[in-house]
């Protein structure tokens, strides 16, 4: 069985899916990612599906699961590069990918993650009176 490589770039894990994955490969990726998030302490995951010429309900469910798992592990997942034909097909298939953040390309995905982290920091600062007073 082939495995999808996971790259660590700065504070972000980048997964670029380059092959037509079998279901087993998809499930393996899900497990590998959870382990890497914990091992690296990364707070952002970008899954680049530019090369995928279809996304069916199995892969769609895997993407949702990865997003949920990473949220539990305090990481933000963004799926980037979905092709127009794939998006049109998913709409017809009835898959809404609820709960998944998406962006047009890797750069936009990085911006999204940065913005989400900034918002979160914001909230933490607001919630924590000590931190508030500590900031000049």
């Amino acid at each position: 069985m082939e495995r999808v490589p996971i790259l660590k770039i700065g504070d972000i894990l980048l997964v670029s899916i380059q092959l037509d994955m079998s279901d087993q490969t998809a499930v393996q990726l899900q497990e590998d990612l959870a382990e890497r998030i914990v091992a690296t302490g990364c707070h952002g995951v970008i899954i680049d599906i530019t090369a995928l010429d279809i996304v069916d309900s199995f892969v769609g469910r895997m993407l949702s699961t990865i997003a949920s798992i990473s949220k539990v592990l305090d990481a933000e997942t963004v799926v980037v590069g979905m092709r127009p034909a794939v998006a049109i097909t998913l709409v017809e298939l009835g898959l809404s990918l609820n709960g998944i953040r998406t962006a047009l390309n890797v750069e936009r995905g990085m911006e999204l993650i940065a913005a989400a982290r900034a918002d979160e920091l914001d909230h933490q600062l607001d919630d924590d009176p000590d931190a508030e007073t500590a900031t000049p």
Partner: protein
Amino acid sequence: MTTGVDLGQPQAQAVRSDEDVVRVRQLVRTVAVAVKLSLVDQTKVVTAASELARNTLVYGGGGTVEVTTVENGRRKGVRIVFADSGPGIADLDLALTDGYTTGGGLGLGLSGSRRLVDEFEIDTSAETGTRITVTKWSR
């Protein structure tokens, strides 16, 4: 309902493992390109084939997929038959409802792939298993 006439021999692919489901996708893509489906239509029929071949494997216990080029007057198309000798589908209406699953899936395989193709026909019984025929025509 299926219409049109077959052109030439069907190409067959056994479905025994999830690697075979990948092969079904690739075979359907090749034929869809050959009959000049638009990129969106290729994507739709390959996605439907992926869903149905997975059902053949998971619920039908394996089976075969046959892909044929068909023609009706001006248009060409791709026709795919998914056949297994599994347990059959007891309640077809229910199985064709968005979100219905007995296997912990999303329950969009049958209902969704019906929306992705032009013709969709199911023959199913506990004795003979399940046979699904779908067709996508070029525009």
